[in-house]
């Protein structure tokens, strides 16, 4: 199977005054189409940065990120925007909902940005809304919702356009364990049913266990890698 995402020798350095902070330190990684990858690691290990680079939200200091074989460093703003809105569904750690829009409007926003709002696409979006358990909250504003509900809006928004890559930054951070399980099952469904590629940054081992492969970052590099089904435990 082709590599959906490829990260080649990527460095990302942030400067703060004279101090430099190396968020990523020459990381290389391939993710197959339809794979579910869980990324673990302590805070500051570069997991979110990695996700941002794959999601075309930021540019590496050096090295390259390929999506479907295309190097992002060759693309201009229009093409990168197109990748963001059509190929990638990003679940943000802090939800990033627009405060003036209702839950459903927030969820439909990517469809509207992509100009793909139709009866058919909205029906799928409504299915997603039902799957994340927000049917009764779809006309509420974010300020009227709990953290968990807002998180579910963020998840539904990322899934609504049925992107080929789902990038999730701590998608279950604000959810109780039962709801977490439902959401993770939903992500797994996306992988199984629509062959969507999922990359999930997560600190909780129980959620990471949903991945086919679990990598662990440390100091901006891959420290450990666990293949889910090759293990033998007595």
């Amino acid at each position, binding site marked *: 199977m082709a590599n959906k995402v490829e990260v080649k020798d990527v460095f990302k350095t942030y400067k703060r005054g004279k101090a430099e902070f190396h968020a990523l330190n020459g990381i290389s990684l391939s993710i197959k189409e339809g794979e579910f990858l869980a990324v673990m690691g302590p805070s500051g290990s570069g997991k979110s940065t990695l996700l941002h680079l794959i999601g075309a939200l930021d540019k590496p200091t050096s090295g390259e990120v390929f999506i479907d074989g295309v190097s992002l460093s060759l693309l201009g703003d229009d093409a990168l925007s197109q990748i963001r809105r059509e190929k990638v569904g990003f679940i943000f750690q802090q939800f990033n909902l627009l405060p003036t829009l209702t839950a459903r409007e927030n969820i439909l926003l990517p469809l509207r940005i992509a100009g793909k709002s139709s009866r058919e696409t909205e029906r799928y979006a409504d299915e997603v809304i039902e799957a994340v358990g927000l049917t009764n909250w779809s006309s509420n504003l974010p300020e009227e919702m709990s953290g968990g509900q807002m998180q579910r809006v963020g998840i539904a928004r990322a899934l609504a356009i049925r992107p080929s890559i789902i990038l999730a930054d701590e998608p279950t951070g604000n959810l109780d364990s039962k709801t977490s399980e439902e959401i993770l*099952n939903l992500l797994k469904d996306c992988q199984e049913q629509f062959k969507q590629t999922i990359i999930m940054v997560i600190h909780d*081992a*129980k959620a*990471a266990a*949903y991945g086919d492969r679990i990598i662990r970052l440390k100091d901006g590099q891959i420290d450990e890698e*666990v293949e*889910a*089904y090759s*293990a033998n435990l007595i």
Partner: protein
Amino acid sequence: MSVKHGLLGLLARKPQNGYELKNAFDEIAGGFWDVNFGQIYSTIDRLVKDGLITASSEDAEGVERRVYQITQKGIQEFKDWLDKPSAKVRPLRDEIFVKLAFMYPFDKEAILQLLAEQRQLYLAKMAELTRKKYLLSRQGGSRDMLMTDLLLDAALFHAEADVKWLEHCEAKLRGFESIQREEALENDEIGLDQ
């Protein structure tokens, strides 16, 4: 030990032979709680001896099979057990702990390596259990499935706790290392002052 009560519970549903009991037990325990035939048969023997179940023979396709049935006493025992909450805290029986206790003073790197490998193993196992759980969730919900699901949850929560504990061990070991190093440095400085 509740292999005993597990078997009683299964026999309370219907009389079964030893092979069927093993399969039914595995199904409920979701493969996480490994019991072998030896354990099953030794438990059955004890139950027969205590008068909680009785055995009868029957012919099936020319092969003699012993089929077990629960007694009144057995039903009573099962009900009493079911109604009482479990008082015991899960005992810490990890080999790893024993290994830790003996290895630590000698080789820090080796113990860190061991902890990491152990943690990876747990993660892989968790992934396997999660896969089972996910497949189960897609089959829709019967009562048995819910029970299996809950049991898998228990295993996962425990494993998660173990992973956390292992991570914690690693962090503390590393921290301890650096404290020692700092102490050594401080001693050097004191030496210089003098």
